[in-house]
């Protein structure tokens, strides 16, 4: 969705930047230009159609169903209730508890991943020897399926099968019996798993920082710390914002780790898990879709805040500029 939205926006910005040719606009378009545009539309049409089928249709359907009191197991009892499901969700303390949990997980993981990921990106960027091995080693966790990594972490912290308590001398401390200890393990595994993704995006950003800028700063007597903050970071701001946006959106929709490790017990339930339980477990389609739509709106809000507020330029990720 975001890519679709941002393309015209980027076009507009490019248009504004164009100097004397402004105003000539459409008339300037040659036959060849028009043909290329038509070909472009034609080529992207299948993708757009597929997107509409698999994204837009379920979305509109969910929006529609969220206005009903409807259960899969009692289809005949379906009745229109307007916005009541939204009112139920928004006034339910469980909803806000899950919002809080999701927010905590998102905030902590994104901040830690950014800092650690930056460090790892520097290591990958600067690695002089065994460059490939270093990069592979750092990226390895990202190649593991989330469910499998979640199981690995769960068994590691489990009292009966785990080794963590023995290593840390914690005796029979039950990690998954408390809210904060469970969330710590969930957050840790999430960080372990996705920091490589952040560092990969940041590595791309680092590679874009012109080397001579750093050299010039060194000649001017800047310390390593000053070079980092005054030269490197400002020059890779776009990459950092893209990394933060992607990770925030991912973390906000966290599901697998919670599902595998606690199944939402001990108040570790997140928003997407809440949606799953209403829709899939309870088969309360109406109420569940209302929560799902709220989750979707929150995702849109995050994306809008980043793209409009921080002016994240998504085209930078593709490296086509």
């Amino acid at each position: 969705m975001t890519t679709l939205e941002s393309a015209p926006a980027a076009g507009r910005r490019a248009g504004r930047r164009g100097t004397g040719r402004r105003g000539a606009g459409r008339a300037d378009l040659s036959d060849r230009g028009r043909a290329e545009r038509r070909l472009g539309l034609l080529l992207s049409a299948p993708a757009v159609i597929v997107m509409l089928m698999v994204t837009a249709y379920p979305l509109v359907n969910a929006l529609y169903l969220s206005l009903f009191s409807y259960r899969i197991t009692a289809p005949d009892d379906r009745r229109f209730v307007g916005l009541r499901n939204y009112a139920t969700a928004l006034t339910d303390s469980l909803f806000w508890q899950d919002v809080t949990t999701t927010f905590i997980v998102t905030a902590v993981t994104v901040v830690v991943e950014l800092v650690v990921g930056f460090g790892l990106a520097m290591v990958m960027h600067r690695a002089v020897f065994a460059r490939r091995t270093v990069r592979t080693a750092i990226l390895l966790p990202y190649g593991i399926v989330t469910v499998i990594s979640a199981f690995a972490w769960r068994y590691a912290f489990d009292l009966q099968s785990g080794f963590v308590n023995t290593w840390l001398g914690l005796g029979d401390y039950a990690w998954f019996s408390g809210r904060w200890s469970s969330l710590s393990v969930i957050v840790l595994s999430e960080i372990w798993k996705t920091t490589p993704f952040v560092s990969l995006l940041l590595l791309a950003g680092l590679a874009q920082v012109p080397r001579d800028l750093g050299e010039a700063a060194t000649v001017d007597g800047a310390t390593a710390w000053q070079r980092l903050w005054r030269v490197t970071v400002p020059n890779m701001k776009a990459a950092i914002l893209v990394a933060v946006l992607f990770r925030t959106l991912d973390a906000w929709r966290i599901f697998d780790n919670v599902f595998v490790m606690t199944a939402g017990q001990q108040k570790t339930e997140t928003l997407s898990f809440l949606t799953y339980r209403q829709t899939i477990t309870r088969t309360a389609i109406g109420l569940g879709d209302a929560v799902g739509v709220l989750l979707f709106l929150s995702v849109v809000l995050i994306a809008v805040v980043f793209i409009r507020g921080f002016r994240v330029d998504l085209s930078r990720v593709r490296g086509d500029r």
Partner: protein
Amino acid sequence: MALALLATGLGACSAEGGTPTLTWYTNPDDGGQTRLAAACTKASGGRYRITTSVLPNDATQQREQLVRRLAAKDSGLDIMSLDPVFVAEAAAAGFLRAFPAAEAAHFTQGVFPPAVQSSTWDGRLYAAPFWANTQLLWYRKSVARKAGIDPNAPGFTWDRLIDAAVRTGTTVGVQGSKYEGYMVWINALVASAGGRIVGGAERGDDASIEIDSPAGRRAAEIISRLARSRAASPTLSTDIEEQARALLNGSRGGFMVNWGYIWRAENGDAKDGVIARNIPSDLGWARYPRVSPDRDAKPPFGGIEVGIGAYGRHKDTLAVDAVRCITSTPNMKKYMIDSGNPAARAEVFDDPEIVRQFPMAGLIRDSIGVAAPRPITPYYTDVSGAVQSRWHPPASVDPNTTPGRSESFVRRVLRDQALL
């Protein structure tokens, strides 16, 4: 998705060439049902072939998959192994083929009453009882001796059990995680105290919720007392059956309530060297503990009922024959010996071979006979989930407030007034 649909369609078509194929969705059981399917295929003399497809481990997730298929009117779902608590929901939704009275008589003959009750909705039989289950009190004989108690003595209660474990520095293993197994425990305690969680279940979402009762408070007292005592497992709030078993085998193992599979599992593990070899000989069993000394315990009821999908191509013909084969008395016995899961017909327990393999067969039979099913209602998932939500973690249970809070919460969930 389109590809997946296409693949399923092709798969279904290709089967129509020769012998008709019936697909049986089973709960995981180390292959016992698959072997039974093969045996019934053979016995049919080429009239049908049964293939099995294994569902997830967790009862709640088994239901999730079945409900989604049935709601989509999946014609490839011929036979399914259903947890007794989900029969009412599937029946009320029209997902199951009802057995006409003439057929029903055959499937219920000699079957334990709780199994028949659980398979019946609105006066009609919707599933054929296949195997029945109950929980026993399993204990280490050496610990019981040390504690100076006899769990088999008449009138043995939860209070005495907890005292004995505390006295000997051992544990009482239970299922305290937020899942169906915890509901099993809560329901057994409420029923053993003479109460019930739901009344008038046939009224659907207008059923009366009765957990805020003296029985409900008594159940809460026991849960709260155990959870806060030294006899509780350190991981009580996340323990399921297998954790309770590991606890019994560990250094603080003393007692646990658990299903009948324990006997097979413990002997198998001892033989394989997973646990100490002397554990099975130290393993004792007794009837489910009482809540009060003067009232018989109502042990939990479980097992599997076999239902026929309402949208299957052979639902009125071959599927019925297949279910008849699967649930025949000899096959129940065969399955019990193969998988360790107790038969749904009482007569099987008197079989000399069964008695030899399961020394506690008589106790299991008597326990199933008086077991209390969990609420039989089409809204079972909501009732169970709402109760679990307010009673979990076990250490947070307060006899003065928890039953009342859970009662009003179940009501609100049933009316779609609260998220669960």
